[in-house]
């Protein structure tokens, strides 16, 4: 009985922690951007102000039922992903799902967003979402190859097992450096940061998928962004950096992992969609395949 209540508490607590840590990551991104541009940047609670303000809008435009459901799928997909990601002291249902389930669940938000944006009937949104799905196709190929290689190396698809193995032996990044490099490359695309952020392109297609989102819908996307950053950081840390023995070590690792793509993003312009597919299917795929050859 205690194990059931414990599990339920973990299922509630893990997305909540993800949200709070994700807020801090959003703040970190904006602070890094500000420092690189020699600005001061937003105050400490700015991500919370933004979300409360967006949910507090007094008029809301809904474009229909699918618009609402799409947003719920986008946020819900990430909430579901959080309970498959083990954190120190809490495994959730990570030992039952494994990384194959996780990589399926991680596709749900993009598909939900595509559904929701489709009903907005805004041409900018349609262009944006078609680019976003193409981008997903681009970064998922190296990502799946990396996942396959890592699972082959550990002879397991369980994230919990991988973390235990790394904490006993050594970190995955030392055992399979090529896969780690390819994974970092795919992470850049997964987080949707420059040079792979053609699908938001504020100046050209008016932030693409988000163009018709207002009020609470935009608030939902802001919440989704916090989960997205957290998921990317935790996933990479679990695969290559040995998870975390305690919370301090864990938080330091995931913030460093997320800070790398952010810092890279701010000094790059963006690639066009077809260039992104070309570069993603060429370099990280090649590196990851060589990495697999070493692992096998």
């Amino acid at each position, binding site marked *: 009985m205690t194990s059931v209540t414990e599990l339920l508490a973990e299922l509630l607590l893990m997305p909540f922690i993800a949200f709070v840590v994700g807020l801090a990551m959003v703040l970190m991104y*904006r602070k890094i951007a*500000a420092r690189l*541009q*020699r*600005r*001061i*940047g*937003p*105050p400490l*609670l*700015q991500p*919370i*102000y*933004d979300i*409360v*303000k967006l949910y*507090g*809008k*007094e*008029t*809301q*435009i*809904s474009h*229909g039922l699918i618009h609402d459901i799409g947003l719920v799928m986008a946020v819900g997909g990430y909430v579901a992903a959080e309970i498959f990601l083990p954190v120190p002291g809490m495994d959730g249902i990570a030992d039952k799902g494994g990384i194959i389930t996780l990589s399926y669940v991680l596709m749900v938000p993009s598909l939900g967003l595509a559904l929701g944006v489709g009903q907005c*009937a805004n041409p900018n949104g349609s262009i944006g979402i078609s680019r976003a799905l193409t981008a997903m196709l681009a970064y998922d190929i190296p990502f799946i190859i990396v996942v396959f290689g890592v699972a082959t190396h550990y002879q397991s698809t369980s994230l919990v097992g991988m973390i235990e193995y790394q904490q006993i032996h050594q970190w995955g990044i030392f055992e399979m450096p090529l896969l780690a490099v390819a994974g970092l490359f795919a992470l850049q695309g997964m987080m949707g940061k420059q040079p792979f952020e053609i699908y938001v392109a*504020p*100046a050209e297609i*008016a*932030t693409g998928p*988000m*163009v*018709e*989102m*207002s*009020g609470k819908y*935009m608030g939902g996307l802001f919440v989704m962004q916090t989960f997205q950053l957290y998921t990317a950081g935790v996933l990479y840390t679990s695969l290559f950096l040995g998870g975390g023995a305690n919370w301090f070590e864990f938080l330091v690792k995931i913030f460093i992992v997320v800070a790398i793509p952010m810092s890279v993003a701010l000094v790059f312009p963006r690639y066009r969609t077809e260039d992104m597919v070309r570069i993603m299917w060429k370099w990280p795929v090649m590196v990851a395949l060589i990495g697999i050859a070493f692992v096998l």
Partner: protein
Amino acid sequence: MSKIGNIPVNAQNGKKRTNPLAGVFDELVQFCQSRSMFMLHYCTGCGAIELPPAMTSRFDMERLGIQPMVTPRQADILLITGYVSVKTLKRVILTYEQMQSPKYVIGICSCTVNGGMYWQSYATAKVLNEYLPVDVYIAGCMPRPEAVIEGLRRLMGNIENGKGIAWKDYFQRYDHYLGNQQHLFGNDWQTPTDIIGEARHYGLETEQTCGEHSRILEQHQQPLEPYKMRIKL
């Protein structure tokens, strides 16, 4: 816009609120609204050149939680930076009506206050206030970035004290604004947004929402049709 009935009404006007913490929540939301403003800059005139320094490293608007946004749906502030010609004003009104309330308009430069150096022009709308409810004017030709920031801070103060409610005026006295718009654009002027329907839906309708001008609008109103998809080969 007829489908707007699906959206739950945010009942604030006149109805008694039962939640004892409603006042606290209102203050929290107002505080957050004043600390987080997304800005759509409709750069019509020369005042636009003062915005890049106000946004970038010298004066850094993001300290105040103000950042640029690119679509009217996401924006809170509409910045009109300079003279507004009659043709531009149509676009400004279309943009304003697509923004989600609470929304604020800031008129930068003398041209938005009284026409400025375009006072004698036949093609320029002189007083922006007659066509849109303006929250803050920042006078000057052109105002320096310090003045722009000062104006934005004043708007922040107004919102925090609950005074940033000019957007309600557009719903409550729509007939007045519509009359001025029809005076410029002619009697067949209409926008895709159904302001009267929104005012009814959100409980903001007063006796001045509809009047003689909205009756003219009803006479000339044509139903909106989606654009035809055409592919040129």
